[in-house]
């Protein structure tokens, strides 16, 4: 019998070794698997290479992992944000390595790793600093650069719901990198709001088939949902808002 549910985040992430390459889903805070990251911090693995679109927001999640000094290098497309002070400080002081990748190359390189593609040619980045050193090839009269797949030891992703086979569905734009990262890692760990009985997810609407998922951790329903329905009442960071502050929300 297949049962990929795991008792807790701590035991699920215990397989992450020092020096591992870890993909972390999410786009900014949206879809970021914060509970798995917290468990990874507690687990203590060091010298990690992190693959994420960004480089952390505020002081939680990926930012906390960086602040804890566990990240040797980050591969991302958009580190500099209004609330990326943790990364900014460590980058400026030379304590973290940055590999900057155009977002489409990041996504496609991750997909290539999952799809068994050895490399691909893309026009993105041609003639720019971010393609320096990349092999150039003219195809159909257009210049392309050769990009290689991006594999990971472990992927930590966030989804809405799973079944015990590891089939996943996501919610709105929190889907983002989760489905491709799940395909590109040797071990994929998903945190979900809930595990539903096998057969309850619509086979036409499963986004990540369970074959790509190794471990599922239930973290409880996100604060802006109640029994699966959107109730709101939070700010963009997911924090509850008092009534008098609602005017400030855009």
């Amino acid at each position: 019998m297949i049962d990929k549910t795991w008792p807790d985040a701590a035991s699920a992430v215990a397989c992450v070794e020092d020096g591992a390459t870890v993909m972390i889903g999410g786009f900014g805070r949206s879809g970021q698997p914060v509970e798995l990251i917290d468990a990874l911090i507690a687990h203590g693995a060091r010298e990690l290479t992190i693959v994420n679109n960004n480089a952390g927001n505020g002081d939680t999640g990926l930012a906390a992992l960086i602040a804890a000094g566990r990240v040797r290098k980050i591969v991302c497309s958009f580190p500099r944000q209004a609330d990326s002070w943790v990364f900014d400080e460590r980058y400026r002081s030379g304590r973290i390595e940055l590999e900057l990748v155009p977002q489409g190359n990041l996504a496609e390189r991750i997909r290539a790793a999952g799809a068994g593609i050895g490399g691909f040619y893309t026009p993105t980045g041609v003639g720019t600093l971010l393609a320096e050193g990349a092999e150039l090839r003219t195809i159909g009269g257009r210049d392309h650069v050769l990009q290689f797949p991006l594999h990971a030891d472990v992927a930590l992703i966030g989804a809405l719901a799973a079944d015990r086979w590891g089939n996943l569905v996501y919610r709105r734009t929190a889907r983002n990198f989760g489905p491709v990262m799940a395909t590109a890692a040797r071990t994929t760990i998903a945190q979900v709001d809930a595990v539903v009985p096998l057969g309850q997810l619509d086979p036409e609407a499963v986004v990540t088939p369970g074959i790509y998922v190794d471990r599922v951790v239930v973290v409880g329903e996100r604060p802006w949902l109640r029994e699966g329905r959107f109730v709101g009442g939070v700010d963009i960071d997911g924090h509850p808002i008092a009534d008098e502050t609602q005017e400030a929300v855009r």
Partner: protein
Amino acid sequence: MNDRISRDELAARVAADIPDGAYVNLGIGAPTRVADFLPAEREIVLHTENGLLGMGPAPAAGAVDPDLVNAGKQAVTEVAGAAYFHHADSFAMMRGGHLDVCVLGAFQVAENGDLANWSTGGEGAIPAVGGAMDLAIGAKSVYVMTDLLTRAGEPKLVRACSYPLTGVRCVTRVYTDRAVFDVTERGFAVRELFGTATVAELEELTGLSFVTAEGAAA
């Protein structure tokens, strides 16, 4: 009459050129504002690279959904007819040439259409590129929306970019606070002048020579 139009007027001017039925990506920052001026009688489908086609305006207070954000990580909504997809599918859409228009900001645009908009190359600056390079090579029309001059008075339309490039020969048209320019084989063509600006004044401000655009409004 002023020789410059406001940021909102510029956003409205860009919006006016986007046809009914177009699939459009609006870059983060000023281009996002174009959404507020899209003509109500046109159905224009907004794409955001984090996985949504059919993006709607900001939600009402209290209805912010942290799972529904745009490329700038701001709260947005979905419209009827929306579709979600993952990041690789989203960038396949952008890179495969399916978007009709993208609107980007710029540090510099060169007269051959080169775009610089992601890094000033300054020491200690933290670089960030996001999806700009993918939009620059992928959209059928790449519109740039920017002031003609920096705050320091330096022209953003240049002979050749001195800042690191985002894309090569990729810009279709530049909407500035003083005029609209098409990128042509022979350089920038003034398509439309705003307010009291004249071609001669703009040439002096930028140090460039402009060609006459086909079908220019000015």
